[in-house]
């Protein structure tokens, strides 16, 4: 039983391990600051290891940036000011969610534009097909009514011949 418990506890260990890469200095004056800190770390890209955010990265540059962000939060700076600070140094790329600007316009609106183009072309194709279908129908109907008229005319002629 004791052995089982030990195994179970050992299984729990990995859950404790990745608590935070940023465990050096994370004390804040209040809960709000601490929340801002941890949410911001997820918003910024580590420039050194580009597919990680600052919360996950162990790069020394990430350490520096975390330290700087903490100090700025303690200074009473908000998300926008810290964004500004990082973008001024590392460019828009540092933000995982790029801001809406002339430069990132295509990035933000591109997918919607493509969707609109796609829907538009589907609509146009569908409408064109519908019109062609109707035209064919009308053509077929005209054809059959012409045939019916011819048939009636022939009948009439036959009746006349018979009657005479």
């Amino acid at each position, binding site marked *: 039983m004791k052995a089982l418990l030990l195994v179970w506890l050992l299984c729990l260990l990995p859950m404790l391990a990745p608590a935070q890469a940023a465990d050096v200095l994370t004390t804040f004056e209040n809960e709000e600051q601490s929340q801002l800190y941890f949410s911001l770390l997820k918003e910024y890209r580590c*420039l050194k290891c580009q597919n990680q955010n600052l919360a996950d990265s162990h790069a*020394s*540059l990430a350490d*520096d940036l975390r330290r*700087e962000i903490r100090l700025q939060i303690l200074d009473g700076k908000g998300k926008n000011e810290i964004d500004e600070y990082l973008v001024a*140094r*590392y*460019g828009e790329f540092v933000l995982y969610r790029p801001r809406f600007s002339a430069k990132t316009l295509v990035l933000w609106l591109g997918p919607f534009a493509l969707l609109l183009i796609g829907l538009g072309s589907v609509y146009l194709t569908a409408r064109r097909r519908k019109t062609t279908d109707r035209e064919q129908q009308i053509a077929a109907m005209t054809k059959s009514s012409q045939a019916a008229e011819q048939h009636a005319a022939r009948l009439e002629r036959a009746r006349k011949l018979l009657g005479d």
Partner: protein
Amino acid sequence: MSLALKLLPLALFLALAGFLAKGLTLNPTELPSPLIDKEAPAFVVDRLPATDGQFDSRDMAGQVWVLNVWASWCGPCVQEHPFLTELAEQRPVPVVGLNYKDQPEDSLPWLARLGNPFSDVLDDRRGDVGLDFGVYGVPETFIMDKAGRVRYKHVGPVDGQALQETLLPVIDQLMAETNS
């Protein structure tokens, strides 16, 4: 359907293919610096050795200068070292070495061993100046113009090709500019 409308999907495809092809040739680790053409961050730091006093970046106003970010723990810095020496010999511009996140007891012997191409060696052991310049790896090399703006940034070690084809021409061009 007009011809233009018919060719639209092809045009869209070609545009997309063009963007993707461009993407393949880019080096994802080289990020454009947002500092280009902006005023270089001003800073005051200790020189190395510490007996040499402090360095104020504002004292460089009026001349073209080069800031090379290096460290003794950085392998590629050894590679680029001879080319920095060449740069310092070939053009009369100050080549300032920012010793990034390093300890003087490591960096000074490094310089003594390989030779010192720098007009000033600056102590940035906490990486604060590096942070202001948006340094995300060493080595990085910045070129400042006479008006104190960052005009060029080279990421990674300077090699013979980068020196001859980019750095020296950029320096010549900036030196030819009148102070505006």
